[in-house]
C-alpha cells in the first residue's frame, strides 16, 4: 500500500484558508458586540489617521473672521482660534500619535516577550534577575520617572520617544508572558524539542511563541493604549518636543492659551479629546473581545 504524497498548500489554498479564518473570526466577534464596535473603531481611526490625509491634505487656511465657530456645513467640527477648520486638523493630527503608539507598543511587546520567555525557559538566576527587575518596576510610579528620564535625555526622533513610552507597559506584559510560557513549557512538544536538543532560541521562537500568537496580539494592543496615554498626556502638558500637528498639541494649545475656560472653543477641545478617548475605547474593547475569544477558560457561553 503506498502512502499518498502530502501535497503542499497552493497559493489558492492559503488564500481560502486565510479568508475562512477571517470569516470565522468575524463570526466569533459578532457575538461580542463591544468587540465588534472596537474593531470598527480601530479600523476607522487607522483610516482617519493614515488614509484620509491623502485625500484631505492639511490646509493652513487662517480666517480671522471665523474664530471658534460652532459646527456648520463648511466646518463640520467648527474652527479654532485662527479660524482654521478643526476637522482638517483632526484628520491631520492622528498620524504622529498612532505611529508613536504602534512603535512603542512594538518595543514594549518585544521586550516583554523576549525577556519573559527567556526568564521562563531558562529559569534559575536569570529568571530571578528578570522577575526581580520586573517586580521592582511594577511597584514604582512610572510617569514621574519617565518625565525625569525625558528631561535628561535628548529627544531627536520618534523612536526615542517611543522607546521611552515603551517603559510604561513592558513590565505587566512580561509577567503575563512569563506565566504563560511557564505553563506552555510543560507541554509535550516542548519536551520533545528539548530532548532533541534544538537550542534555546528554537524552542522559544519556533515552539512556544507560535502558540501564543493571539496572546501577544492582545497585549500588543494594550501596550499601544498605554503608549498613547503617555504621549497624548505628555504632549498635552507641553513636555514632548513634538513639533508639528497632532491631537495632543491641539489640547496643549488650548491648555496653554486658557481656551479651556472659553465657551466658544468647546468643539476645538472636544474633538481631540473624543478622538483620543474613542480610539482608546476601541482598542480596549477589541482587546477584551479577543481575550474572550482566545481564552476558552473565561468563555462564558461560547
Amino acid at each position, binding site marked *: 500500500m503506498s502512502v499518498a504524497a502530502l501535497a503542499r498548500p497552493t497559493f489558492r489554498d492559503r488564500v481560502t484558508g486565510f479568508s475562512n479564518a477571517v470569516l470565522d473570526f468575524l463570526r466569533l466577534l459578532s457575538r461580542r458586540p*463591544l468587540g465588534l464596535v472596537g474593531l470598527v473603531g480601530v479600523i476607522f481611526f487607522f483610516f482617519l489617521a493614515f488614509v484620509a490625509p491623502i485625500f484631505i491634505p492639511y490646509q493652513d487656511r487662517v480666517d480671522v473672521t471665523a474664530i471658534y465657530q460652532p459646527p456648520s456645513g463648511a466646518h463640520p467640527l467648527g474652527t479654532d482660534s485662527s479660524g482654521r477648520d478643526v476637522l482638517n486638523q483632526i484628520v491631520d493630527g492622528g498620524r504622529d500619535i498612532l505611529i508613536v503608539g504602534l512603535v512603542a507598543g512594538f518595543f514594549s511587546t518585544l521586550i516583554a516577550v523576549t525577556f519573559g520567555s527567556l526568564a521562563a525557559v531558562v529559569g534559575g538566576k536569570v529568571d530571578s534577575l528578570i522577575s526581580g527587575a520586573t*517586580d*521592582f518596576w*511594577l*511597584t*514604582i*510610579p*512610572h*510617569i*514621574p*520617572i519617565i*518625565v*525625569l*528620564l525625558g*528631561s*535628561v*535625555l*535628548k529627544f531627536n526622533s520618534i523612536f526615542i520617544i517611543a522607546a521611552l513610552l515603551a517603559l510604561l507597559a513592558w513590565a505587566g506584559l512580561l509577567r503575563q508572558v512569563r506565566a504563560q510560557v511557564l505553563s506552555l513549557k510543560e507541554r509535550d512538544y516542548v519536551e520533545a524539542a528539548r530532548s532533541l536538543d534544538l537550542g534555546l532560541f528554537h524552542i522559544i521562537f519556533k515552539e512556544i511563541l507560535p502558540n501564543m500568537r493571539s496572546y501577544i496580539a492582545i497585549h500588543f494592543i494594550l501596550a499601544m*493604549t498605554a503608549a498613547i*496615554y503617555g504621549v*497624548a*498626556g505628555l504632549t*498635552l*502638558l507641553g*513636555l514632548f518636543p513634538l513639533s508639528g500637528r497632532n491631537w495632543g498639541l491641539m*489640547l496643549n494649545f488650548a*491648555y496653554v492659551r486658557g481656551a*479651556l*475656560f*472659553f*465657551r466658544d472653543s*468647546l468643539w476645538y*477641545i*472636544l474633538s481631540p*479629546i473624543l478622538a*483620543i*478617548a474613542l480610539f*482608546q*475605547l476601541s*482598542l*480596549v*474593547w477589541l482587546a*477584551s473581545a479577543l481575550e474572550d475569544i482566545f481564552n476558552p477558560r473565561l468563555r462564558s457561553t461560547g
Partner: protein
Amino acid sequence: MAATTPADARLASDLYRYSRYARGRAALAWMWDKPIARALVRAFITIFLVTTLNFVLIRLMPGNAVDNYIQQIMQEQLLSYEDAKQQASSLFQLDLNAPIHEQYFKFLGGLLRGDLGNSMLSQGTPVFSIIVAYLPWTLFTVGLGLLLSFTVGVGLGLVAAYRRDSWFDHLVSTGGSMLSSIPNYVIALLLVVVLGTQLRLLPIAEMRGATSPSVAPGFSIGFVADILFHAVLPVSVYFLATIGHWILSMKSATLATLEEDYVNAARARGLTDGRITTAYVGRNAVLPLVTQLAIQAGYVVGGAFFIESILVYPGLGLRLFKSIDQRDYTVMQGIVLLLTVAVVVANLAADLLYAKLDPRIGRAGGANG
C-alpha cells in the same frame, strides 16, 4: 565539671559560637517566615534601587543635569570650571571632586538625613522645604479618591455579579469599561470643559488651588469645607478614573467565588443570603483586589502629575510640572524620589493588609495531623 584541657576549652568555645550562630540563623529564618519581614525588605530594596536610579540619571547619563548646569553657569556667571563645579556640588549635594562611588555614598547619606539638595532656582533653599508643603495635598486627594472608588466600585461590582446579565450589570460593566479606558487627564478635561465652562455647574476658576484666600486656616468647619470644595475636582477625577477597574475586577472575582464549593456548602447549611454575601463571597472575592490596590496607587500617583497640572491643584504633581518648566533638576529629582517612596510605602501597606486578611498567608501553615 569536666576537666578543661586546652582542647576541651577550644571545643567548648567552638560549640558556644556555633550555637550562637545556629540560634542566629534560626532567628533569621523565623523572621523571614513572617511576611512582614519579607515585605519590609522588599520595600527597602526598592527604595534603595530607586535612589540609585536617581543618582545615575542625574549624574551619569550623557547630557546630564549636573554637567549642563555647570556649563550653564560657567557661561552666565563667567565662572571657571572649578568654581562652577563647586557651586554645583553644593546644589546637588554631590562632591564632584570625589570619585564616583564616594559621591554615591555621600548622596545616600544625605538622603538618610532628609537632605535632598538645594533648589537650583532659589539657591540656598533646601529642596525638602520646598516640596514638603505640596505632599499632603497629593496624598489627601489621591488617598480619598482611591478610597471612595474602591468602596463604591467593589460594591457595584458585587451587585453586578449577583445580577449577572441584568440591565444593571450591562450598565455598570459597560460604564466601568469605558471609564477605565479613557485616560484620566481626558476625564479631567471633560469635567472642566463640560461641567465648568459649558454648563457652568462648577465655579472652575474659584476651585483652583487647595484653599481659598478668604478662608483662614485652622480646625474650623469653614476651613474643612473649603478644603473639600477645592478637592472636589481632583478627587472626582481619581474616583472616575479608577472605579471602572474595581467594578470589573470585583465582578469577575465575585463570579469566580460564587462557583466555589464552599458557597454552595454554606447555602446547604441554611445560612442567610446576607451572611453568605458578606463573609463567604465578599471577603474571598475582595482579596485579589487588595493586591491591586498598590498597583493602582502607583498609577494614580503618576496620573496626579497630569491632573494637578490641568486643575491647578498644588500637589507634588503640579510642583513637578513647574520644576520641569524651570529646569530645576534638584527639585525634580527630589519630587520623583518622594513620590516613589510614597508609592512603595503604599505597596507595603497593601501587602500587610493582604497578609492580615488572608489567613493562608503569613502563617507557617499547611495540613498537619
